[in-house]
């Protein structure tokens, strides 16, 4: 949850002149870019760039980076209010990474086979997704907001997550179960925690706060409360739902 603190130690400098086009695009640059990418980017965006926790980069046009200069800026400075951090790589290395990322656009991403319209119906009815997740102003706050999820997550990752939610639990949605010394039991999502206290949103959506001194027992684990939909939805419904979520690209 506090993973970003080290980045504050190194404040990024104001932008220097950045050319519009990538000046480093030789095959050696792409090869070096691949190594840089695998070390720094592949963990979220996937080794082949087809997305995962990070956005799908294996597309002809990147929604947030229409130009090479825009992509350079995103790699250098990150995207505010997202999980995308900036980088201390030098200009040459960033351009090499840009060269590799743009080469990914030639690779077909995981194909989206479902029907987004049918998926919207699954999302609202059988899936019951709004019970926990927000979409625009609708829905709950127990799970992460799905507004714009299609721009942030690859389709393959979305499908895997719906089938096996425990495969990747975002840190801000850590499941906590605690019992107070007075005998009260609470399960919920961790909102905040420090040396002395913890704040939880229970499954009725209510925020609750406890001094750790009042707590008799507590488990705070990277587990998820989301059930697996592997056996709840048919393969077609699952693909439709993925198609719907992948189409959710803007903020509502």
């Amino acid at each position, binding site marked *: 949850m*506090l*993973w*970003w*603190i*080290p980045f*504050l*130690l*190194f*404040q990024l*400098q*104001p932008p*220097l002149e950045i050319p519009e086009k990538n000046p480093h695009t030789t095959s050696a640059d792409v090869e*070096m870019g691949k*190594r*840089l990418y*695998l*070390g*720094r980017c592949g*963990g979220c965006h996937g080794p082949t760039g087809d997305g995962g926790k990070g956005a799908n980069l294996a597309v002809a046009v990147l929604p947030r980076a229409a130009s090479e200069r825009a992509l350079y800026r995103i790699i250098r400075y990150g995207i505010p209010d997202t999980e995308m*951090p900036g*980088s*201390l*790589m*030098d200009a*040459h*290395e960033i351009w090499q990474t840009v060269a590799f990322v743009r080469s990914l656009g030639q690779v077909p991403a995981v194909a989206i086979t479902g029907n987004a319209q049918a998926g919207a119906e699954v999302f609202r009815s059988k899936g019951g997704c709004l019970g926990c997740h927000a979409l625009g102003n609708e829905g709950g706050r127990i799970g992460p907001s799905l507004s714009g999820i299609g721009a942030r997550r690859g389709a393959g990752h979305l499908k895997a997550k719906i089938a096996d939610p425990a495969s990747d639990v975002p840190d801000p949605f850590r499941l906590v179960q605690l019992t107070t010394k007075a005998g009260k039991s609470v399960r919920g999502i961790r909102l905040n*925690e*420090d*040396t*002395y206290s913890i704040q939880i949103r229970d499954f009725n959506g209510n925020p609750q706060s406890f001094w750790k001194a009042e707590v008799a027992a507590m488990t705070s684990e*990277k587990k998820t409360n989301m059930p697996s939909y592997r056996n709840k939805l048919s393969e077609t419904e699952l693909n439709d739902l993925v198609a719907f979520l992948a189409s959710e690209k803007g903020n509502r």
Partner: protein
Amino acid sequence: MRLLAFFLTLPLCGQVTHQRLLNAEKEPGNWLTYSGNFAGHRYSPLQQINDQNVAKLVPAWVYQSNSLQKFETTPLVVDGVMYISEAPSNVTALDTRTGRTLWRYRRTLPDDVRVCCGQVNRGVAILGDLVYVGTVDAHLVALDAKTGAVRWDVTVADNKTGHSITVAPLAVKDKIIIGIAGGEFGIRGFLDAYDAKTGKLAWRFWTVPAAGEPEAKTWAGDSYKRGSAATWVTGAYDPGTNLLYWGTGNPGPDWNGEVRAGDNLYSDCLIALDLDTGKLKWHFQFTPHDLHDWDATEVPVLIDAEFRGKPRKLLLFPNRNAFYYVLDRTTGEFLLGKAYAKQTWAKGLDDSGRPIRLPGTSPSVEGTKVWPSVAGANNWYSPSYSPDSKYLYVAAREAGSVYYFGNAEFKAGEQFNGGGFRSIAGEEEWGAIRAFRPTTGEVAWEYKLFTPPYSGVLSTAGNLVFGATAEGQIFALNAADGKPLWRFQGGGTVRSNPMSYLSDGKQYVAMTMGNSLYVFHLP
């Protein structure tokens, strides 16, 4: 009578002589230098606030800074006036009783100030009737202690090449000692002494050699030219040896060691300089050929104690590289070294104190996981030594980083990192206040923190240790056993050091939290 009362309650701005600085412990109501005394103890002999009553501590007043930069200052207090620096390079004098402003110095800065890690300042120095501050555009400025008017302003270095000043100066004898920052810009590091009255440069010690000097052989080719070894944390002084003890920072570039094969002197060292001449008496290098940005810019702590049966003048140093060191401060002899937080980069230290590196710990293009983290097991914030408990208190960080190797092309004024770093995904980082037995490095007690702290500690004669969490709590622990006795949520990440003083004969404890300075007292 009213006039007399006025003078009794506001004895503002007496002359601060070197004699007073030397005998700081004789006036415990004041806080005259960055660490409270020249020995770097950050210890207050005050005991009105103590383990019996600290639970009742409440804020007396709060001063809010207008700057949203990190607020890292340690206030100085002299005879009823508090002098603080504020980001980026401002100074404010406050009345210690009311928290109201007496004067301000506001510096106009260029638009494109070049600093690696925030336009911050850690405090001022005082000598005679002048208050001294270093600025992020690399000037040293002397202000009239009564008015804040500029008495002199000298250029220490050029900010366009990445030189800046964030360190609190140290006033000793007739000199103002000032370090430089810029370790991420490939500067040539130095430590300067200026004449306190005139601002004339008295001496400069280069922490990176010139061509032809023997130390240049510890740098491949001409890599010494971009060697960094900045001096951005206030050191200590011993009038007995007449030596200044100062830590030096990382070699440049931070994470690409291939371009600077060799030990890279005097990066990551403790240097002992003759105060009068600036000549090097001895040095000790903690991390030869550093590859992880582990600056040795921590506060050295000087104590006289029996070490293995012999009374010795010691220098204690809990280093960012996760080892705790004890040196003989007369000769620089290595006496003891011991890991005090999780580390995975060295098998240990050899008999001379040199680390025995483990293979596979160098930064790589794909990333190498190493403990401690880039911010280290300790950092610039202060430790504390209590002559009562005889413990050294350290805010320790338990975390690792993924370290990247990268290009290292030098352009003056641009960052010269040669790689980068990130947190280890899924790692549960944590921290602790630890009390060491200084001559053995054994931990007497530990107070666990939920996340790694980024703030220092103060010990007092009231059997207390004050510290803070990254989540905004300041707390007091029993200095003897580490039991928590009091805490307060200040509403912002703490990146500073606590201190204590008297005002009208009453004890206060002060610390910045978030963008505010909190001052506590017993109601």
